[in-house]
């Protein structure tokens, strides 16, 4: 494991998110450090995906700031905003590969739009990224010809095209079988350890969390705040909040179940 620097790469400060006036997340603050694999947990409807979408600048928060690499994505505009977006990579729940392009073209796209590299350089870099996720033999396949796990890995390759410092993954193992999911976890670990990429992962796959996450925060739908922060194993053993214990130890007690149920936003 790489030594962690104490400087946070992402700072979320007094962040509040609201849809049509109704508050989803209420005044939360946390920090993510360079090289960390950081997981955002919570039941359905707790606002995990909402938080992620604010962190990558898709939505404007109702209040608060999100500072990435020293720049506030909430207020950044123009060049500054572009430079933040170039320093992050994002993969979405469904992969979101462009269906009309081959894998190579998908990975090449950010390079074509953001760099002045010659065409053969872009091809080489795109191949390197696909190789890294084990998909180089499939570079001229269309996304629809690939399995779900391969699409997820290809999405990671595309997100890494511009060598971002931070990768945001929204439910990376959703819909994958346990073996494929474990392979994806291993890939995330490799990338975090070897390339010192910071990962911010939204998930509710407990096996993934225990095997890859350095630190987690847990959001609760009821109080709309962070109800637990820390290392997943420690929280499992020592969390005081009953819902957190229930979430991290499924099947232990049925008394506190269902508190976080509801629709995903």
């Amino acid at each position, binding site marked *: 494991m790489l030594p962690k620097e104490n400087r946070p790469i992402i700072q979320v400060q007094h962040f509040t998110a609201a849809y049509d006036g109704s508050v989803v997340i209420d005044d939360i603050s946390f920090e993510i450090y360079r090289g960390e694999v950081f997981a955002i947990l919570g039941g359905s409807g707790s606002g995990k995906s909402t938080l992620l979408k604010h962190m990558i600048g898709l939505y404007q928060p109702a209040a608060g700031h999100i500072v990435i690499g020293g720049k506030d994505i909430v207020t950044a505009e123009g060049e500054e905003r572009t*430079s933040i977006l170039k320093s992050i990579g994002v993969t979405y729940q469904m992969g979101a590969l462009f269906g009309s392009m081959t894998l190579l073209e998908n990975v090449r796209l950010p390079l074509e739009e953001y760099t002045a590299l*010659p065409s053969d350089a872009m091809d080489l870099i795109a191949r390197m990224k696909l190789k890294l996720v084990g998909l180089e033999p499939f570079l001229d396949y269309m996304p629809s010809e690939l399995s779900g796990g391969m699409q997820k890995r290809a999405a990671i390759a595309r997100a890494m095209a511009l060598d971002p410092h931070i990768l945001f993954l929204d439910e990376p193992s959703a819909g994958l079988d346990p073996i494929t999911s474990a392979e994806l976890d291993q890939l995330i670990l490799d990338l975090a350890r070897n*390339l010192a990429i910071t990962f911010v992962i939204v998930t509710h796959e407990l096996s993934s969390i225990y095997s890859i996450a350095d630190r987690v925060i847990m959001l609760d739908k009821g109080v709309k705040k962070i109800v637990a922060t820390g290392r997943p194993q420690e929280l499992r053993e020592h969390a005081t909040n009953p819902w957190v214990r229930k979430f991290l130890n499924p099947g232990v007690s049925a008394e506190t179940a269902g508190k976080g149920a509801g629709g995903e936003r």
Partner: protein
Amino acid sequence: MTPVAEAPINSLDARRSSDGGTLTLIMTGRWDSDTTGKWWQRGQQILTQGKPRRLVIDASEVSYCDGAGVAFLIDLQQLQIRIGGDATIQGLQEEFRRLLDIYGRISIEPPPGRRREPLSIIEQVGKGAVELWRDLKSLLTFVGELTVMLLRAARHPSFVRWQDAWLAAEQSGVNALPIIALIGVLLGLILAFQSAIPMRRFGADIFVADLLGIAMLREMGPLITAIILAGRSGSAFAAELGTMKVREEIDALRTMGLEPVRFLVLPRVIAAVAMIPVLTVFANLFGLMGGAIVMRSLGYPLVTYVNQVLSAVTVGDLMGGLLKSFVYGIVVAAVGCLRGLETRTGASAVGQSTTSAVVSGIVLIAIVDGLFAVVFYALGL
């Protein structure tokens, strides 16, 4: 990785050893996706022109290097191997060296991949013919299925989901009135104006009313209404059903033992068929109103125009036009739904179905119109 602060300029210098066998490339500064591009071809050029036996890349002055910089190093190494020499990289900082090690396992040659040979003209014609044949077969099956459903609906009206039919009728009928009125008025106006100019030379401009009345009721009214229906509702049906197909809602209906044709197609076809004659009457009316504006501007009083129209057209003209519009309605709604149900997967599939629904709709309208012309002529109508 991406530059956040202002990047120090990087540079690439070449030095040859005294015996000429060793070429040293000295890289300095920042090598990332923004700054590597300008040196890429220069580096390749130096190597291909110099063709050294030994290449030494001195990277000790490199302050930053990301995937793009590593790709440049790999590219130079690979090029040197292809030239037939050997390459070494010196002085690269430990963290960048690790990056190089990770990516350095890239093979020199790209994997073979699947070559997609372009089809020859004969293959394209054959493929097109097979697709046309399949298309006709599916059209025929669909028409059969729809006919059976319509007959059952006629015998048992409760078989139809009337709530859906009312909704579709509102969307494809009532909501289409403004555009039908606008196009109708404009069409009447243009038709009357264009015919008035030559007819006036013969003192026959009062017969513009005859021309307009017959043309609108028999031909233009039903035709323009059908084309608007194809563009507005045929496309909407295809997009709705196509999206349902992509989201596996149609499969869900099937596995619940419910026929998509009954659930989705029948209400829409009934709605379109019920609405299109009404819309056609509106189009006729607004077309004649457009003609009235022109005739007034030519100096004829309104009553003269109305009497002239009434003496020229018969109930047969109106009914003939409405019969046509009835058939257009079936064709447009059915082909819209069919294209929706045929939607494949992927983001572009719904777009393709929608386009195909409108194009097939308009082509079929033209064919049906031609058939009606022949039949009406043969019957002396």
